[in-house]
């Protein structure tokens, strides 16, 4: 809120500082002054009043804080009210139909008003803090709100029908034209101020156009009330209306202060608009109960602060805030004023004492940690995954969790229904991702557009879905997504390297997935459970993502991999003897997968056979239609001694025989 420095000064007795000092006083006692701007002999503060401090949404509230910090007295504005004529209730009656929503309603009648422009001092004061001036009557009600924090509303008495003002719930089908010209349909949960015939204003939020004070107005019914904060907040939200009044009512106004604020406004109306206030205003509901006294152990603030604060000092600080403090045995019995409804518990008082302490009152205490913390297994796994991928040349990215409903259809690891947020920030993206694929496709596309494509990118993030069955809650999975342009084998190599590093033994079984090309995708199985997928993104998905070529994609379930992660393997010494390698060109039919060939060779259990690698894959006229040449390299090595060529040749011959006999392969030595 905006605060006028000069206005605050007027409410203080004996302030001798400058604006910068006041700014510091406020900021370091909990009311941050974010900005201070000079304006026509004044300085306007932008105060960041925390949501628990409704009492500070007015100049008196700010002045109270300064007074507490500086030990000053306040100069509260006097209500020099001389009432005359018949009682207010002879001019109008008042009723509260919904005491739960309107605990207090006061109505005072002021007659003989001459509506016109406000005097210069009043206008400039309101304008300084950004309040639009209207006419002297309305300006007075605003002025008192900014002075004391109590919103007020003046109804043109001549236009209140049936001589009745009442606070009641709206009826279904009722509508109301507001001061801002907008017409709203009222909800039965809205609280309205109505006359005998219909609603005149949306209580605590905005008055209606039909009863607004105009140039011809001569008498007003001045409403000053206390409304239940939640009601006002819900109505304001329901109708998307925010006003200075609702801002205050939502945060809880001072019920006990409503009538005094009304008297203050009446006295100003007398002074500035020639009005005569009628005596005996309506006061339905009254000031409410006195605040409960709070027990405070005098040593409590010192213990919470970790510094010495004597009981006498505790008492002094509380009293400087206008709290009354008495002794009750060993305890302080503290009575907060009615405007400090935020003070209810002992800890609330402790906070007041500590925040009013001088800078540096709280020392810095250093205690050594009692123990070294255990590493978090999930975080350790993700760190290892990230590090390994980065070392293999991959770049980590971070995308947002929100995707379009269509993109939320991609799912490889969890299959409950997509979750949707009620208020998406990006139109068309209300769903939570079930896969990292959509985000990575988009990143790939953007970087391609910027000329930085061709890099493997990955993201480690959470996926979300609803429960698959029963009434279990939403499901969350920690996943790795990895996307790379180019051959599937290159991506596979990265994933294999990663899985090997994690000590997880997984094999890839062909499987089909929406989003991945048919016949070019598979599922990683480890210990009989699926731990992820790998495949070529299908052409249509790539095209929709704006990509010219379809990249390869893998997604792994890191939660599951974490649970499977192997123990630290003790070091097995590698052989110190030379390795021997033999290359073979194996021509087989197109439908024989490499895995078949690999498992044939493995089944031979060749002595000292240590590895099989594919170093070339050839298709062409030399091998003929429907066939391919798998060029493989066999490695042999013994840890007992140097192998002889004869022994290796014998093993290779066995391989050749087996592949020719069992796979119908044509094998050529390289």
């Amino acid at each position, binding site marked *: 809120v905006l605060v006028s420095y000069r206005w605050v000064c007027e409410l203080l007795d004996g302030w001798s500082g400058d604006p910068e000092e006041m700014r510091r006083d406020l900021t370091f006692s909990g009311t941050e002054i974010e900005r201070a701007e000079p304006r026509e002999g004044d300085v306007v503060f932008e105060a960041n009043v*925390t949501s628990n401090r409704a009492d500070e949404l007015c100049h008196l509230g700010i002045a109270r804080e300064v007074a507490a910090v500086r030990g000053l007295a306040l100069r509260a504005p006097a209500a020099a009210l001389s009432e005359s004529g018949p009682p207010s209730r002879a001019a109008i009656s008042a009723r509260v139909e919904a005491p739960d929503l309107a605990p207090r309603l006061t109505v005072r009648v002021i007659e003989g008003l001459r509506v016109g422009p406000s005097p210069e001092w009043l206008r400039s004061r309101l304008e300084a803090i950004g309040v639009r001036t209207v006419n002297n009557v309305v300006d007075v009600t605003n002025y008192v709100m900014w002075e004391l924090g109590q919103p007020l509303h003046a109804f043109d008495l001549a236009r209140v029908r049936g001589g009745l003002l009442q606070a009641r719930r709206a009826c279904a089908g009722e509508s109301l034209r507001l001061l801002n010209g907008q017409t709203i349909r009222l909800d039965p949960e809205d609280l309205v101020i109505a006359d005998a015939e219909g609603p005149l204003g949306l209580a605590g939020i905005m008055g209606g156009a039909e009863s607004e004070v105009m140039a011809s107005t001569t008498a007003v019914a001045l409403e000053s009330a206390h409304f239940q904060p939640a009601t006002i907040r819900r109505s304001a*939200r329901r109708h998307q209306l925010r006003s200075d009044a609702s801002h205050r009512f939502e945060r809880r106004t001072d019920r006990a202060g409503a009538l005094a604020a009304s008297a203050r406004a009446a006295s100003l109306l007398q002074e500035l608009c020639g009005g005569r206030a009628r005596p005996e205003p309506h006061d339905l509901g009254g000031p409410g109960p006195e605040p409960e006294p709070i027990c405070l152990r005098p040593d409590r603030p010192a213990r919470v602060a970790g510094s010495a604060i004597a009981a006498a000092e505790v008492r002094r600080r509380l009293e400087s805030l206008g709290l009354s403090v008495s002794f009750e045995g060993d305890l302080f019995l503290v009575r907060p004023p009615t405007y400090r409804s935020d003070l209810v518990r002992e800890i609330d008082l402790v906070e007041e004492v500590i925040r009013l302490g001088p800078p540096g009152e709280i020392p810095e205490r250093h205690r050594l940690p009692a123990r070294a913390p255990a590493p978090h297994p999930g975080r350790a796994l993700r760190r290892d995954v990230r590090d390994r991928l980065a070392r*293999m040349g991959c*770049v980590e990215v*971070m995308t947002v969790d929100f995707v379009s409903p269509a993109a939320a259809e991609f799912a490889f690891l969890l299959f409950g229904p997509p979750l949707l947020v009620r208020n998406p920030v990006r139109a068309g993206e209300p769903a939570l991702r079930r896969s990292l694929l959509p985000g990575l496709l988009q990143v790939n596309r953007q970087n391609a557009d910027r000329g930085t494509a061709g890099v493997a990118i990955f993201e480690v993030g959470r996926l*979300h879905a609803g429960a698959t069955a029963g009434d279990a809650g*939403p499901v969350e999975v920690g996943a790795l997504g990895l996307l790379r342009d180019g051959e599937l084998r290159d991506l596979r190599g990265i994933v294999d390297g990663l899985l090997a590093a994690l000590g997880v033994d997984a094999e890839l079984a062909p499987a089909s997935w929406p989003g991945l090309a048919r016949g070019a995708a598979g599922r990683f199985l480890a210990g009989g459970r699926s731990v992820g997928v790998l495949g070529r993104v299908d052409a249509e998905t790539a095209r929709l993502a704006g990509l010219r070529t379809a990249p390869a994609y893998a997604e792994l379930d890191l939660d599951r991999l974490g649970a499977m992660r192997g123990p630290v393997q003790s070091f097995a010494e590698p052989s110190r003897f030379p390795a021997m390698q033999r290359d073979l060109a194996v021509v087989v039919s197109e439908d024989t997968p490499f895995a078949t060939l690999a498992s044939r060779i493995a089944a031979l259990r060749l002595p000292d056979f240590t590895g099989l690698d594919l170093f070339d894959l050839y298709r062409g006229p030399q091998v003929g239609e429907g066939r391919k040449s798998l060029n493989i390299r066999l490695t042999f090595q013994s840890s007992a001694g140097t192998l002889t060529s004869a022994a290796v040749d014998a093993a290779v011959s066995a391989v050749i025989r087996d592949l020719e006999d069992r796979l119908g392969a044509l094998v050529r030595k390289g």
Partner: protein
Amino acid sequence: MTGGREGPAEEVARLASEALTLIANAADEAALRRVRQEVAGKSGLVSRLMALLAAAPRAEKPSIGQAVNRAKSEILAALEAREAAIGGTSASGGPSEDVTLPGRRLEPGCLHPLTVLEERVVSVLSALGFEATEGPEVEDEFHNFIALNIPPDHPARDEADNFYLEGVPHLLRSQTSTVQVRALETRTLPLRIIAPGRVFRPDEVDATHHFLFHQVEGLAVDADLSMADLKGTLLAFFRGLLGEEVQVRLRPSFFPFTEPSAEVDVRLEGRGWVEAGGCGMVDPAVFTAVGVDPERWSGFAFGLGLERLAMRHYGVADIRWFFENDLRFLRRLDGQRV
């Protein structure tokens, strides 16, 4: 060899000048190749120099050795210089290579700057005895609000300020304080934990706001913790993170789940104070909500936003860069000191 017997030193000088003359006189590539053989080959002049050294009397070895070494490096340098001058011929005599071709760069992979910074924050806090822990991003209202002293009808629960989900009583967590609650529910006391993670608030996206950001939240619970412990911990943390000259100050504020609450300001030498996070003593209501006796236990909590820290650290003016995933941005920040 006329005249008197030549001493080893003279012989070194003679062989050296012989070699240098040969090198200087080589006119073309072919001649130079032959000269290389004669000079640096198996039984060339350099080898003869070495043989001289081997045959020298023991007493003269140090001085002869020096002379031989000097001569040898002079000869080899001259040979290479001549080869370079005649050009085109590498030492091995293979075809020439264009050494001005651009290098084929190996781009290493890299981690996201927020990951790097988070790891750093976690490691400093770990040294202070805080254990990293995590909680779900999709939370229920108990953990996100009720247990954090945010009752129904509290403005912080406003529909417009949170990402509530359709059809389930859950929302995307608006703060990592939810993890505090989970830790208090399940762990034994005392404890010191930190909870790094994503949080979500439907803010309008601009240069300094995003609907998604990362927090690191810390919580310590023990029998007799005070704001002095909180301040000491924050000071130790920011010094560990930013350097020994850092100053820390607390400024009273308000959060529903801590009381007293404060903003944390830090100052680096020669710079102004900047807001770095929020903190406070755990509100007794939070303890009560999870069945911890607030008379027996006390605690402090603090939280900081990673993006804000990263923006200041790397000098990034717009928060959107962190989610833009422009590889040039990611690489630029990679390897910077954190």
